[in-house]
């Protein structure tokens, strides 16, 4: 027997004794370099691509089914309804306000959770995640209870309505607050990961150069975090767009008052107007795609 290379079958005796041809030596050389039999990468890509494409295909089929269901005339008719136009405007406004509030809160909170180890940090980390795992209706119910639960004879909603003159429950601010409650949790996650990826040593050097912690954050960490901030704002906006359960419970679904596009789908379905529901659904898909594309282009432009 000749020497056995791992993964290469030993040659038979007849071939061992025969003078090696140029082709044989080239084949052996390749086998020895590889250390084993050459194997194709095609099965790898087929398996990975096959599994991945299942999800992509599912989403594409969902959208195609919606497109096929709604005719252009029905789509136009639905979108020109004043209730839906109001819902569209309130959606744009409330999602934008909720996303801006989210990034305003998520930036400092994400930074603190990323940079510092302090008592109660794990607890705060867990609390921040609660809106993500809580059933949406429960979150809405909790908001409702918070605003109407008397604390030693003092009630938030009553105080806001009677003293401040800014009632919240079942009005548009409730829509924003319900959207913010969920969207902010996602924004905090994103900002924390963003700051985790920024080396804190540059901030430390800035502190030796005369910066306070606040200056080091604003002048060193903050300018590096803009890409994460765009991502967090996008995610918060998209989450706010899709929010339904908390809005239904905390803000209600009153036409021309607290109706956003996600509640429009529900209201149209509840009165059996499937065409309008599908039209609004497609509008929401288009809005989400436009926002994602615009923000990604913005991000790419800023990078370049």
């Amino acid at each position: 027997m000749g020497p056995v290379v791992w993964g290469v079958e030993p040659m038979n005796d007849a071939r061992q004794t025969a003078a090696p041809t140029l082709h044989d030596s080239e084949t052996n050389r390749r086998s020895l370099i590889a250390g084993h039999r050459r194997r194709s990468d095609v099965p790898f890509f087929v398996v990975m691509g096959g599994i991945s494409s299942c999800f992509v295909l599912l989403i594409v089929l969902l959208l195609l089914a919606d497109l096929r269901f709604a005719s252009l005339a029905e789509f136009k008719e639905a979108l020109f309804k004043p209730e839906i136009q109001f819902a569209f405007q309130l959606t744009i406004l409330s999602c934008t306000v909720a996303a801006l509030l989210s990034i305003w809160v998520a930036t400092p909170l994400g930074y603190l959770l990323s940079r510092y180890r302090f008592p109660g940090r794990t607890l705060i980390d867990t609390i921040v995640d609660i809106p993500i795992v809580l059933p949406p209706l429960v979150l809405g119910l909790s908001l409702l209870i918070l605003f109407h639960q008397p604390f030693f004879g003092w009630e938030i909603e009553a105080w806001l309505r009677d003293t401040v003159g800014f009632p919240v429950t079942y009005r548009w601010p409730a829509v924003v607050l319900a959207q913010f409650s969920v969207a902010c949790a996602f924004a905090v996650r994103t900002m924390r990961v963003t700051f985790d990826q920024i080396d804190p040593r540059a901030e430390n050097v800035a502190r030796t150069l005369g910066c306070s912690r606040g200056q080091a954050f604003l002048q060193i960490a903050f300018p590096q975090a803009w890409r994460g901030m765009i991502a967090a704002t996008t995610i918060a906006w998209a989450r706010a767009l899709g929010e339904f359960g908390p809005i239904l419970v905390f803000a209600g679904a009153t036409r021309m008052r607290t109706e956003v596009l996600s509640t429009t789908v529900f209201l149209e379905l509840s009165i059996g107007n499937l065409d309008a529901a599908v039209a609004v659904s497609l509008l929401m898909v288009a809005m989400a795609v436009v926002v994602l594309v615009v923000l990604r282009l913005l991000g790419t432009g800023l990078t370049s």
Partner: protein
Amino acid sequence: MIELQAISLRAGQFSLDQVSFKIESGRYAVLMGKTGRGKTTILEAICGLRRVVAGKIFIHSTEVTHWLPAERGVGYVPQDLALFPTYTVRGHLEFALKIRRWSRPKIDERTDELAEQLGVTHLLNRTIDGLSGGESQRVALGRALSFYPSVLLLDEPLSALDADTRWEMQGLLKSLTDAHDVTTLHITHNQEEATALADVSYQLCDGRVEKLESKHDQASSR
């Protein structure tokens, strides 16, 4: 002058106890020792980035043990340089001066002077992307020296450089620290580097800092 009196430090599981040494004003000191013995931890404690468990730190006879890093007036060049990714070379050289609210003409004058000394004038408007190891090192050094610190701390500043650049940087370090009359503590484990630069050398061994025979001592004994 830098003086550590019986300093105790903790960094996770690692600790250093009762570390003491003193570097006279204007001297170029080199601290040597094997990797993982706590040289960087000592440097971080001097510039205020590492909490001191016990003991005292003095800079020019003033106790600064619990002062904020910004208050100590220490120039610090960490091993990885930690340059600011969103700043240009000029931005680095100006950074400490802007924080100190220097006037624009004074900032420009100082930046130009420093850039010339460091040989980075042609790089002033470039971002740090694509700078070579030697160029990055010069920028980090300039950033640390820009505000005329009385103490300069260098954490293995030449370790990532090739032999030619290291030789060149050694000369630059020596000339700049002499020109700025700054008390320097330089960490390295390169004996050749220590011999070339040090007025006085220390060895960190088994948690104790021991003074090695200095050029000054050698000259006195002759």
